[in-house]
């Protein structure tokens, strides 16, 4: 596969049990080493291309997730890492869990697993790279821009009413 960019990752722990977070970190360390593709784990949303979100979203951190997403420049891709980020997982029935990451921001790639295995995560990141390229291409040709979290909330509401 041809990699056209060195994408940087940003990781935020929604309300995961930490299991997926350490696997995300483990994916950057020598055994799995996503860094050999030029992928770097950054702490700054404004430098990031790929947003790895672990864990379901709860009522206290939903604004944090939205803010991080909005701060990231276009083109950007969101990965939901682990079953909790996909749909709430084992904590779905808890009173404080709203659901997966896609309840507050649009998600491009869903990576399952409890906890997500680093191999699966790398596969997800590779899929994300393709989407990132497509988005960059669209931006060049058609003035594409990602939905902001507010627009996304609007869209979800319309979907509910329809």
């Amino acid at each position: 596969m041809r990699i056209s960019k060195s994408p940087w990752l940003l990781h935020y722990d929604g309300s995961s049990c930490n299991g997926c977070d350490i696997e995300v970190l483990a994916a950057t360390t020598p055994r799995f080493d996503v860094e050999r593709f030029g992928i770097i784990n950054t702490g700054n949303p404004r430098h990031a291309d790929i947003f790895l979100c672990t864990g379901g979203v709860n009522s206290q951190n939903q604004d944090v997730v939205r803010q991080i997403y909005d701060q990231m420049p276009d083109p950007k891709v969101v990965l939901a890492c682990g079953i909790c980020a996909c749909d709430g997982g084992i904590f779905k029935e808890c009173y404080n869990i709203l659901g997966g990451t896609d309840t507050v921001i649009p998600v491009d790639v869903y990576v399952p697993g409890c906890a997500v295995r680093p191999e699966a995560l790398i596969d997800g990141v590779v899929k994300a790279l393709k989407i990132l390229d497509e988005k960059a291409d669209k931006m060049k040709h058609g003035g594409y821009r990602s939905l902001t979290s507010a627009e996304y909330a609007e869209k979800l509401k319309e979907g509910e009413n329809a």
Partner: protein
Amino acid sequence: MAGKRSVIPFGPQHPVLPEPIHIDLVTEDEKVVEAIPSIGFIHRGLESLVTKKDFNDMVYVAERICGICSYGHGYGYVDALEHIMSIEVPDRVQYIRTLLFELSRLHSHILWLGLMADAFGFESLFMETWRIREKVLDMLENATGGRVIFSILKIGGLRRDVPDEVMKGFIPELDRIAEEIKACEGAFLLDPAVQSRLRGVGYISGKDAERLGCEGPFLRASGVEWDNRTRGYAAYGEVDFEVITSKEGDSYGRCEVRIKEIYQSISIIKQCIEKMPAGNHSVPVKGFPNGEHMTVIEQPRGGACYYVHSSGKKFIERMRVRTPTFANIPALAETLKGCDVADVPILVVTIDPCISCTER
């Protein structure tokens, strides 16, 4: 001249933190004068699931309180219920449980060393420690089938037996890990540049630490001998180990305690493998739990309390987990006072914060 006070927010999303915690740092010039922690970003409310999942299935929820100390949480919950239901588990189960507990302590402490290295900006050391940690995860995967969350515990024993030859195969691996840790130990304990970031940072006296209810390596680094493993649960009563303490009381001391505990864990695992008795891997469980019990165990991050209250039904009434980080936060806020803003990330990492445990 006294400077003007300003408040610097730290977190929830911060490069050094794998997990969100928020601290308001009230600073005067470069010094922190007060630190106000606020938590709740990962609060899921999983203790409420006891009313929705049957007490056997709650084991898997308990394991998912935290991904790093997952085994310990499962153990604490299972142990509390076994006490309530007066279940005697076979000796072999006790030994395998102890072995797995120490393996997870080993991986947790090595993980912490890596995060610490990352916090003081020594990235190659972070990579090296996490490379070593993968070997521990391989052993855990061999024994249980999972890298992070094992789901091998059940009330009345283990879901499957761990074959003797698998465990015997751990011994040469453990020796290699000990050698490799020895090789990078110097970087933490002897390197002058690292020491200047650790020595004297975040000092807390043993008396204060105890008064504020600290737990684990944080407390032992201030010279207090308090290690719940000496209570002798599982097979800890039958293996040799000494409580490790340090006189330093600062970040350096916490590093020293954890490194020594790595060797201690390796020794405990080897003793377990040597003494491993034959026998069944589980006993049948009948009826529903009725009563209350509090189990206190030693997690990698310190003592943890598991309180279970049940009244003879399929669903227990209350499970409450007091995790070590929860107990350490008041003391963290205390040690942050008077330190430099630049040292805050290191200090937060030295308590080995586990926020998902804390907020559940």
